[in-house]
């Protein structure tokens, strides 16, 4: 290859690398919108506060101004005021940090896309939990709680009753149904290790779809052993909200309420005690109060007291679900989420303009629903989410088409979440959090800053060392090192690799090994010069000898890197392995292509008479090079 072609290749590689990492270093604009779910005047206030926060903390780094425009995600939406924040070196940790400010919707803090992102698949670096903040959860199946729930669903006397019925029943058809029912109950109550594992795996799949639908960037969800699930959500701004969504065991159920019958009467009586109920503080006390009230009012077994919730502003001005009154319902639901097909979606009621969840029923669900709505005209059909009554519309006419909707004063995102939960069904077993790591974005940003600062200072020191020892050649080595780091960064950006603290350690090792390659080359050239060779011959021989050494030593380390980066590796070990792997490949390129191109260009094209490659006898010898070399004859 002619030097020109070589330089062209190197320049294009460097240019491409810069383009790939440009989203991380170039000027970017962040848009920050206020939370839709708070009152308009509060939104304005939130923006003012956010603006002040950024001015106070980041006045040097970012410029803020207020702008009006359509939301990025929804180009057809209404114009809205937002904060436009411009600055360089934008990191996700910063987005996470401002996403947590009061009144800001973290899902609507985003970067305006750049042309390199649209055309070159360049992406911002993915940072690990330790660097950008986020959370890592390990959840365990709570089979104790599941058993409690099942015991309530299938009380002992109910099983005994069925057993008795099985013995006395004469009708073969009915006997079979009872038998099936008993077997179903038996299998539900049987906790074998296999079944436990199955339940947890089922829960994992559901959690995965919940998280995927939420658009969390780079989630990791997997089984850990038999009964545990590990989830990591980098950059999640609101750990509590995420915890809720993931572990939600929300169930949807329809229960009947007969306003003119027993239920209506009991509802009135129960509601006389409602003010007293509101004085109860803990969840436990509340439940206890309701159960005692049921006994006091001599409730029949099939009825129970439930709470009607609605949304009202709390003391902080944020809408919150709060109990409004009691309603007495049939304990047995007429329809549950299981009867709904997977066609469930959030939509807007065209007449009332409310957010609702619309669903289609399964075949058997359609039959049941048709039957129930035909037989119970005039009664109320209460919709319970997590045992909370969210709405109770009256049945005016039979619903035969197998379609239905759930209304309940939802916000758009609540409706979406609910649709999701119905679609995926309830978790087969409730999950409890046993391990948790969360890192706030501020801390992550500091880890990045201190890590980068350390690498940068290290780089400068290495540069100084190389310059002091190898003079001009030291500068060439530093250029090679710079290109090396650039290439590594570009590869990371391209392969969507998550950078973690141990990964940064891998970068340091790469710096050491990259410099090592140059040192090996230079020492060889110096030896050749010391033997009296000319610059041209010394460079040629030096590279020839050094290449084998560099390839051998790097390939050996590459074996270790491949093993650590392989599927066998876990978490931090894998991350370290990948960094090392990339670093070795880029080192081979920079040492054997970049350094070589520059050195050979100096030797052959510029035809320098002496090479600035350090002190001592080598240099002196090199000046005598040609004569000596010729005099010795064979070299």
């Amino acid at each position, binding site marked *: 290859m002619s030097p020109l072609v070589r330089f062209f290749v190197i320049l294009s590689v460097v240019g491409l690398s810069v383009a790939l990492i440009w989203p991380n270093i170039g000027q970017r604009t962040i848009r920050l919108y206020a939370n839709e779910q708070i009152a308009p005047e509060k939104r304005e206030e939130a923006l003012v506060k956010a603006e002040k926060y950024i001015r106070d903390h980041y006045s040097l780094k970012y410029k803020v101004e207020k702008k009006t425009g359509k939301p990025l995600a929804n180009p057809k939406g209404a114009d809205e005021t937002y904060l436009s924040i411009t600055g360089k070196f934008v990191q996700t940790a910063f987005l996470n940090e401002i996403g947590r400010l009061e009144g800001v919707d973290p899902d609507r803090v985003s970067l305006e896309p750049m042309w390199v992102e649209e055309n070159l698949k360049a992406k911002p670096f993915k940072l690990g939990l*330790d660097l950008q903040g986020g959370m890592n959860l*390990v959840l365990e199946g709570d089979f104790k709680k599941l058993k409690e729930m099942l015991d309530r669903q299938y009380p002992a006397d109910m099983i005994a009753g069925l057993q008795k019925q099985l013995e006395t029943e004469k009708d073969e058809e009915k006997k079979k149904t009872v038998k099936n029912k008993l077997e179903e109950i038996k299998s539900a109550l049987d906790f074998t290790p296999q079944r436990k594992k199955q339940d947890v795996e089922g829960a994992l799949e559901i959690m995965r779809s919940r998280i995927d639908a939420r658009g969390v960037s780079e989630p990791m969800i997997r089984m*850990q052993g038999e009964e545990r699930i590990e989830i990591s959500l980098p950059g999640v701004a609101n750990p509590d909200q995420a*915890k809720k969504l993931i572990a939600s065991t929300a169930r949807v159920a329809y229960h009947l309420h007969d306003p003119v019958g027993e239920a209506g009467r009991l509802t009135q009586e129960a509601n006389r005690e409602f003010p007293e109920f509101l004085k109860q*503080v803990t*969840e*436990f006390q509340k439940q206890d109060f309701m159960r005692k009230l049921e006994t006091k009012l001599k409730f029949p077994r099939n009825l129970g007291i439930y709470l009607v919730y609605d949304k009202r502003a709390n003391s902080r001005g944020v809408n919150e679900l709060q109990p409004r009154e009691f309603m007495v319902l049939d304990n047995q639901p007429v329809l549950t989420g299981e009867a709904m097909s997977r066609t469930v979606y959030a939509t807007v009621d065209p007449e009332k303009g409310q957010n609702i969840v619309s669903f289609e029923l399964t075949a058997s669900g359609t039959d049941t629903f048709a039957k129930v709505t035909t037989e119970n005209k005039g009664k109320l059909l209460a919709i319970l989410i997590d045992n909370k009554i969210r709405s109770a519309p009256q049945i005016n006419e039979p619903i035969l088409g197998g379609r239905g909707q759930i209304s309940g004063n939802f916000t758009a995102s609540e409706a979406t979440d609910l649709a999701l939960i119905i679609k995926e069904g309830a978790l087969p077993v409730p999950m*409890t959090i*046993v*391990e*948790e*790591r*969360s*890192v*706030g974005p501020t*801390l992550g940003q*500091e*880890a990045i*800053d*201190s*890590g980068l600062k*350390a*690498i940068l*200072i*290290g*780089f400068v*020191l*290495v540069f100084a060392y*190389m310059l002091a020892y190898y003079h001009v050649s030291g500068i060439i080595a530093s250029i090679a090192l710079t290109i090396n780091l650039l290439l590594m960064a570009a590869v990371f950006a391209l392969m969507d690799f998550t950078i973690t*603290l*141990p990964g940064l*350690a*891998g970068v*340091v*090792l790469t*710096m*050491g*090994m990259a*410099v*090592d390659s140059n*040192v*090996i080359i230079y*020492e060889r050239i110096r030896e050749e010069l010391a033997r009296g060779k000319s610059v041209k011959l010394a460079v040629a021989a030096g590279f020839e*000898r050094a290449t*084998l*050494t560099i390839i*051998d030593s790097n*390939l*050996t380390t590459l*074996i*270790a890197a491949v*093993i*650590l980066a392989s599927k*066998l*590796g*876990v*978490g*931090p*070990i894998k991350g*370290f392995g990948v960094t090392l792997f990339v670093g070795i490949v880029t080192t081979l390129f920079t040492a054997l292509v970049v350094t070589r191109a520059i050195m050979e260009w100096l030797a052959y094209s510029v035809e320098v008479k002496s090479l600035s490659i350090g002190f001592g006898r080598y240099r002196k010898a090199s000046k005598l090079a040609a004569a000596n070399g010729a005099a010795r004859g064979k070299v």
Partner: protein
Amino acid sequence: MNFHVMRFKWINLSVSLILLVGLLALTFQRFGGFALSIDFAGGIKIEVKTGDKLNAEALRNFFDKEKIAATVQLVDKASGDRVKIELGGKVQQDLAARAEAARAELDKKGYPINAIDYTKYLIQTRLLPANAPVIEFSAAEQVGPTIGKYLQTNALYLVGIALLLITIYVAFRFRLNFALGALIASVHDLILTLGVIGILQIPLSVPVVAALLTILGYSINDTIVIFDRIRENIHGQEELGIEHVVDKSIMQSLTRTINTTGTTLIAIIPIYLFGDDSLRDLAKVLLFGILIGTYSSNFVAAPIVVIWDNIMKRKSRA
């Protein structure tokens, strides 16, 4: 300059062996084993920004009063002082039980029932005044010892496979005795570094494991460079004797050894000085680990090549 390293090969190997055994023995005898971070031992770690009522002293007194064994440490960060609270695995279990007992109270305030949220709850409700704003914890971890165990076995397993493959590769590219030298030097580095970690009582954590892997990679790289020189010099110089060739190779590589180790070390020093807490441990381990790696390439790997060669020669003569 000529320095006959191989003349001292037995001394070097003995010193290494004494250090290997001695440091580990000292670790277990004086400190009762390795210090463990919560990655390995399980436990709770919380970081919170210091404030009016929330400072190291107050927290220490508070935990004393609540009879919770905790270490409270001040860490200074760019964005202001923070305290780091660490609770061991036993305390964690204890707190989990207490949280269970106080379920009703926690439910009321909207805290999940587990050890870490109970700790947060205690700080919020019992240390701070009733009307204090909800404190935001900048980092919170609660782990069982499972992650550490998993990591330990996984790392050991992977290192084992990597070493095996490297040995095969080196045996193939060089000779069997070189492979043996590389293998023993690598294992030597890992164990010796662990020994130093032990007597300095650096807590074993995920970054420390990463550092150990780094040292492994570095040491192999370093060893191969020396081996490469030996391989090159051995051709046509066999009559001089392997010891002479190895000595010569080590001396020829000396400048390279010093410069490479030097540059790597000065790249690590800033990490030690400016790095985050966990990075600082990593840098500390790297600093002595890399010195150990450099030492072993010259004074462990190379002597083993020589000794093996001598044994083989004696055998073939006999």
